[in-house]
Each structure stands twice: as C-alpha cells, then as structure tokens.
C-alpha cells in the first residue's frame, strides 16, 4: 500500500508571508505606481484631474531650469559622495586596523546614535554654528581672520551632506575594511610594499564592495536630500528635491513634482545598479 501525503494549503506560512506583501503593496508600491500615473494627470483650477497627458513631461523636460537643477543636483551629490568617502576613510581605517575590537564596538555604538536622531534639528544647529555671527566666525575673529560666508553657499550644503552621510559612511566602511583578510595585508608588507602603497593596491581593492556600497548610500541620500541645500545652501540654485517641495507645496502641481521625482528615481536606479555591478565584478587577473 502506497500512501501519498495530502497537500493542504499551509495557512501558517501564508499568515506570516502576507502582512508584508499586503502592507508594502498597498502603501509602498501602490503610491509609487500612482505617482507614475500622477505624472500624466492635469491640474485645473488647483484641482488635480485624472488624465493621460504628456504635457507635464514635455513642460518639465523642455525647461532649462529643470535641467540646470538636474545637473546641479547630480554634481552636488557626486561631490558629496567623494568628499564624504574621503573624509570617512582615515577614520574607518583607524577603527578597522588600529583600534581594538572593544574600541571599534564602542565607536560604532556611538555612531549609530546620531543616525537615529533628528537630522532636521542637527542641521538647524549647524545653521547657527555656521552663521555670520555664529560660533565659527566668532572664533575666527579672535584669530584675526574671517568672517567667512559659510551659509547659503555650496560649502554649507556640503557640510549638511556630511552631517547626513558621514556616520553611515564610517560605519559601512569600517565594517568592510575590518572584514578583509588581514593576512593579505601582512603579506604585502612582508614583500616590502610601503604602508601607503599597500592601502591603495591591496586594502582598497579588497574592500571594494563595501566601500562602493557606502558610496552608493551617500549618493542616494544626498541626491534626494532637501534639508541641507535648503537650510544651509540657500536653495539657489535649487536642487531637484527643493523643486519637488516648491512645486507641490506652493503650486499644488503634484503631477509636475511627480515628473521630477520619477527622473530622480530613474537616475538613482541607473547609478545604484551600475555601481553595485562595478563593486561585485570579479577582478580579471
């Protein structure tokens, strides 16, 4: 006698699988898809109507101010990524190679804290610190220097991006540096490779994946950020994020804001995928 076990639906498994699918589907995928649709709607008399028109796209993509903002945002984000990665690296190197396990743990413990505190309030604090009569300029005047214009400049925006990205960059970089095979570094030293040279020829390539991931996060965060360019950068010229806020808050032009948003997402997808692809590509030697 051969009996085959009957296949009943596994209600237990389904019960645990559904919540995320339903919630994210309804409230994450739905809104994003809707936003794509929304970019084809029209606004008449401050009210949005369902439609399928390309006018919003034509309008936005033909305007100089859109492309100015686009490339400006791209430029700022690139700059932020490079600066943050460079600023973070020596600290990450220290934590990964020169610090004890214990010190490293405590460092990460402390770095996670600002990551979860109000970004907005931190930016506001910097606004006060960087002001014409703020702490830094007052200090400089004691030394007979300054005052330097730091707010309403790209410098201010960069400071803001650093505030946003630096903790995460240090954490991710430290993690990936700490996890490379230390024996390879030792081997390089044994073969007479100088310390600095080892960093460039051995350490960085080995930690490539993690370093690129850290950079990608910096890019995504700064590309989409609204607060830093607005409060520390003076919002002129505007970034794409500021454009979204302006367009939707004042003009109620949600469809046009949607166009901007979609171009941002597409850009981010392209950058993220190519960067990750680069990070994971095997070295062909």
């Amino acid at each position: 006698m051969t009996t085959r076990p009957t296949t009943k639906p596994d209600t237990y498994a389904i019960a645990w699988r559904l919540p995320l699918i339903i919630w994210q589907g309804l409230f994450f995928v739905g809104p994003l898809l809707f936003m794509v649709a929304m970019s084809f709607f029209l606004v008449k008399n401050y009210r949005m109507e369902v439609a399928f028109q390309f006018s919003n796209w034509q309008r936005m993509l033909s305007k100089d101010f859109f492309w100015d903002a686009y490339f400006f945002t791209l430029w700022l984000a690139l700059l932020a990524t490079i600066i943050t990665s460079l600023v973070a690296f020596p600290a990450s190197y220290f934590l990964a190679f020169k610090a004890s396990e214990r010190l490293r743990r405590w460092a990460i413990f402390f770095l996670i804290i600002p990551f979860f505190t109000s970004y907005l309030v931190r930016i506001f604090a910097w606004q006060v610190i960087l002001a014409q009569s703020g702490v830094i300029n007052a200090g400089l005047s004691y030394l007979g220097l300054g005052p330097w214009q730091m707010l309403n400049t790209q410098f201010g925006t960069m400071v803001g991006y650093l505030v946003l990205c630096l903790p995460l960059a240090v954490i991710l970089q430290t993690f990936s540096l700490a996890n490379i095979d230390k024996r390879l570094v030792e081997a390089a030293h044994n073969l007479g490779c100088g310390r600095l040279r080892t960093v460039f020829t051995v350490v960085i390539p080995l930690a490539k994946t993690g370093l690129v991931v850290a950079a990608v996060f910096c890019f995504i965060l700064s590309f989409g950020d609204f607060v830093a360019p607005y409060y520390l950068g003076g919002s002129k010229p505007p970034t794409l994020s500021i454009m979204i806020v302006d367009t939707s808050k004042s003009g109620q032009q949600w469809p046009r804001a949607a166009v901007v948003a979609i171009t941002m997402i597409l850009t981010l997808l392209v950058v993220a995928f190519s960067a990750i692809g680069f990070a994971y590509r095997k070295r062909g030697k």
Partner: protein
Amino acid sequence: MKDDKLLRWVLTFYTALVFLFVFAPIAASLVFSFNSDRFPTIPLGSFTTDWYVKAFSNPEVWDAALRSLIVSSVTAVIATAIGFSAAYTDYRYDFVGKKAFLILSLLPPTIPLIILALAMLGWLSMFNASGMTISIIIAHTVLCAPFAMAVIRLRLNQMDPNLEPAAWNLGASEWVTMKSVVIPFTLPSIIASLCLTAAVSFDEFAVAWFVSGLNKTVPVVILEILTGNIDPQVNAIGTAVFLVSITLVVIAQVLVLRPAKKPEAA
C-alpha cells in the same frame, strides 16, 4: 617604529575630530538651549531656561508632542509586527519569488524621503486619507518596517535551526511554538525594534510634513518654526527630541548587542 606611532596618533586625532563633527550639533543644541542669546555665538551669553519655558508653554508644541508620541508608538508596534513577519518568513521559508519579497521589504530606505512623501501624499489624498494622523502612521510604518526586519532577522540567525522542530517534536503545534519558543527567543530584538522604529518615526519630518496637513507632529512644528525665523525655542525642543531618540537608540543597541546566551564550554 616611530613612524608607526606618529601615524597612530594622527589617525586617532583625526577620528576624534570626525566624532566631534558628528556630535557637535547635538552638543551645540544642548548648550544653546540654555543660552540667553538669541543668536548664539562665542562668548556664550548667560544661563537661562527661558527657551524651555517658552517652548513648553506653547500649546501647539504639546499638541504636536502628543501626536508624535502616538504616531511613533503605533508605528513602532505595526512596523515591528510587519518586520517580524518578514524576518520570520525569510528565516524559515524558501519559495518562488523570495528574492522579490526581500527586495520589497528592504527597498523603502533607498528611496529619497521627499519622493516617498510626495507619492504617499498623492495616493492617500485619492482616498481622502491625507491630513489625518493615521496617514502619518501608515507612511512611517512603510519606512520603519525594514529596520525592524533587519534587527529581528539578525537575532533569528542566532537561533538553533533545531529549536522549532524540537518544540514540535515535544507536542507543540506551529502556532504554539511561535508563542512559546520563537517569540521568547527573539524578545530582546523585538523590544529593540520597537525602540528603534519609534526613534525613526519620532524624528521623521519630511513625510509627516507632506502628509499631515494640519495634524502636526513635533518635527513638523520644528520645521514650521524654522521656516519662520531663527527661534532658539527650536534648541529647547530639539534637545528634548534628541534626548528621546538617544534614549530609545541606546536601549535598542544594548538589547541587540547582548549576545544570545551561548552554553559554556563543556
């Protein structure tokens, strides 16, 4: 070697500077909140608690604080529940479309907040749901669930894969096993997740701003004050906000970092 020592000192000093940079705004906010000067600078003005008094006698601030509390608590519970279900599903099951499932669960933090805010605004207003507190809760849950999932998933990694089967073997059905074994085991990470998601929700302003309309949470109030003039009240409110977030994050970290009890060597 002297070179080594010098390098070490330089790097240590540099790293300290980085930490200084990262914590400067938090410290500054704290200091300025007690500073009498309207435009804080060196030398500092006199010590005062006026700003705290001003901020906390403002009914709008209390209103927003209460709403923030409600939003972050409810968000924490829902986000943790969803995060738990996603983490457990990832831990236990392999199925067609699992990759898509994981991407869906981990994607939200990679979309710029402003865009998420806009999308939710449009979507929710189609259902006339924008402007309500519930809409902030919904939006925040989407944002926070990935964090909850990550924290709980890490803890599940430490669970003996035979632990659930052992419970079934002793007569516990799957649901009973969930209640008697999985949840007790993951409890520290569940609490940590509640704290963390509450912190994220508490600080989050962009989506709340877009979606809340007239029902403001604390960060939104801060934002509105900011768009007005520079008002040192913000320091007082901000410091209070920092205190709440920092407490939550520290609790969460302590809970997560306590390793799963390992049996001592035989």
